[in-house]
């Protein structure tokens, strides 16, 4: 007990006190079960995990060393409520007390379930469970590979169902342990082996029913990846009607039981044979029908050809008939032509102008002589008339006057006949026309005369 006397105080170093505290805590809390919420989770890279466990009012530092952390089936997360077992100690360099965890389980969910959920989400995020990835099963497999335990009811059931449906199927069994530590690795390896062997058309991976723990290998990541990597379609049959394992999610088809898987994989042989028979029959029928149709086409064409031939003969006959008619028509036309020509000719002859011409010709001399006569008469009359006129003319002609000794005197300048001596001047030249010849005279004297008055009768 510490005394108040300064001389009897036991003075400790920090390390000594810390060491004492540590020993005390380690003695009092060698093993404690604790419930709390994880926060402040850190994984520095050494493999050790550090976090704080807290509740509403308090918190405690916690450490999970690498070896223990490796054994965890699930991942730690902030906010996760856990139940832990550990021992309390002190981290002396920092003077912090902490709990060193030896066991951690999630509160509420089982460790299995949480691990399962975390793994499922991680693999789903990679797209391993996508519907698009799933392949159809072959319709007519020849060899079925089965990854299962060689003992047990499951394999016997599967063989039985496969053979009942399709007795010809070859079965290749890849024996594995379906539960236990090695199981997952063996299953994955068996799937790979069947793929390598190559002569398998479809794979069934399965086992009979059991508890969730029994089935746990089928949730292993190695099995999932082996199924995903298989180039042969995989049917999973893990014998648990309601819960799905990750192998079920990854497989191309999930069957609720091994027998159901066998049914899914094997076609019913009798149906296949029947289908084959039906196909062959339909083949023959279709061909027969087609040949029949082509035959009918041929017959139709032949009938049409015969028809055409018949029509050609008919036409030839018509042509002959037409030729005969044509000849007849030409002959008739010729005859008609001849007849018409003859009758017209006859008419023509009847209307010949010859008589008129002859008549006319006969008349012409008559008319001619009458014409001559008339002409002569007319001529003579005119002659006589002309003679009498001429006589009159002669009587009146100034030339006759001249013959009687008269002369006509004209002025040389004006060419006018001079009747009056007073019209001329002495010394003017005048022209005197005599009955024969003319005189050019010079007036020596002008003698006015009482002589004859115009228009008076000389007698």
């Amino acid at each position, binding site marked *: 007990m510490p005394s108040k006397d300064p001389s009897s105080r036991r003075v400790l170093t920090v390390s000594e006190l810390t060491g004492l505290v540590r020993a005390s805590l380690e003695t009092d809390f060698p093993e404690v079960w604790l419930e709390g919420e994880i926060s402040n989770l850190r994984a520095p890279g050494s493999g050790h995990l550090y976090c704080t466990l807290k509740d509403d009012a308090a918190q405690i530092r916690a450490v999970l060393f690498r070896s223990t952390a490796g054994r965890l089936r699930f991942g730690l997360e902030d906010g996760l409520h856990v139940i832990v077992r550990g021992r309390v100690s002190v981290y002396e360099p920092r003077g912090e007390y902490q709990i060193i965890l030896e066991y951690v389980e999630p509160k509420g969910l089982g460790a299995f379930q949480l691990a399962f959920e975390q793994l499922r989400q991680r693999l789903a995020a990679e797209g391993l469970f996508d519907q698009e990835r799933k392949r159809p099963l072959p319709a007519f497999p*020849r060899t079925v590979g089965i990854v299962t335990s060689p003992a047990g009811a499951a394999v016997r059931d599967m063989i039985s169902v496969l053979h009942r449906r399709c007795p*010809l199927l070859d079965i290749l069994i890849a*024996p594995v342990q379906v539960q236990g530590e090695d199981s997952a690795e063996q299953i994955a390896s068996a799937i790979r*082996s069947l793929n390598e*062997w190559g002569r398998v058309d479809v794979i069934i991976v399965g086992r009979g029913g059991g508890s969730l723990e029994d089935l746990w290998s089928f949730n292993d990541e190695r099995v999932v990846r082996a199924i995903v990597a298989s180039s042969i379609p995989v049917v999973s049959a893990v014998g648990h009607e309601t819960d799905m394992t990750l192998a079920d999610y990854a497989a191309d088809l999930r069957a609720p039981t091994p027998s159901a898987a066998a049914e899914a994989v094997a076609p019913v042989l009798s149906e296949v044979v029947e289908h*084959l028979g039906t196909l062959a029959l339909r083949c023959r029928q*279709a*061909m027969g029908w087609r040949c029949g149709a082509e035959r009918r086409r041929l017959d139709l064409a032949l009938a049409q050809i015969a028809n055409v031939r018949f029509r050609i003969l008919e036409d030839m006959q018509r042509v002959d008939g037409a030729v005969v008619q044509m000849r007849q028509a030409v002959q008739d036309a010729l005859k008609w032509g001849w007849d018409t020509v003859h009758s017209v000719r006859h008419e023509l002859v009847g209307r010949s102008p010859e008589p008129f011409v002859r008549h006319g010709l006969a008349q012409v001399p008559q008319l001619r002589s009458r014409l001559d006569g008339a002409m002569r008469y007319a001529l003579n009359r005119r002659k006589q008339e002309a003679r009498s006129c001429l006589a009159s003319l002669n009587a009146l002609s100034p030339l006759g006057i001249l013959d009687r000794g008269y002369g006509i005197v004209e002025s040389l300048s004006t060419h006018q006949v001079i009747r009056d001596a007073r019209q001329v001047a002495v010394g003017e030249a005048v022209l005197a026309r005599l009955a024969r010849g003319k005189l050019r005279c010079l007036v020596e004297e002008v003698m006015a005369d009482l002589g004859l008055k115009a228009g008076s009768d000389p007698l």
Partner: protein
Amino acid sequence: MAGVKFEQAMARLEAIVGELEKGDLPLDESLKIFEEGIRLSKNCLKVLEEAERKIEVLVQDKNGKKQLRAFSSYDDDNHDSASDS
């Protein structure tokens, strides 16, 4: 893989029947695939008739080499006779 060949043959046969029933092909083509179809159906039937079933076990020996061994499940004979009835 005999299974794949059989499946391909069946698929081709189905296709041929479809073509013939549609009746679109010219006659000489039809005759050709008809012959092929009949040949395929005969072959498939032959495969089915000649097949013998085998049940084997794939084992890997120490050297990693794989071998087949006959499957000796003690119940196999019982089930054989049951399924043949």
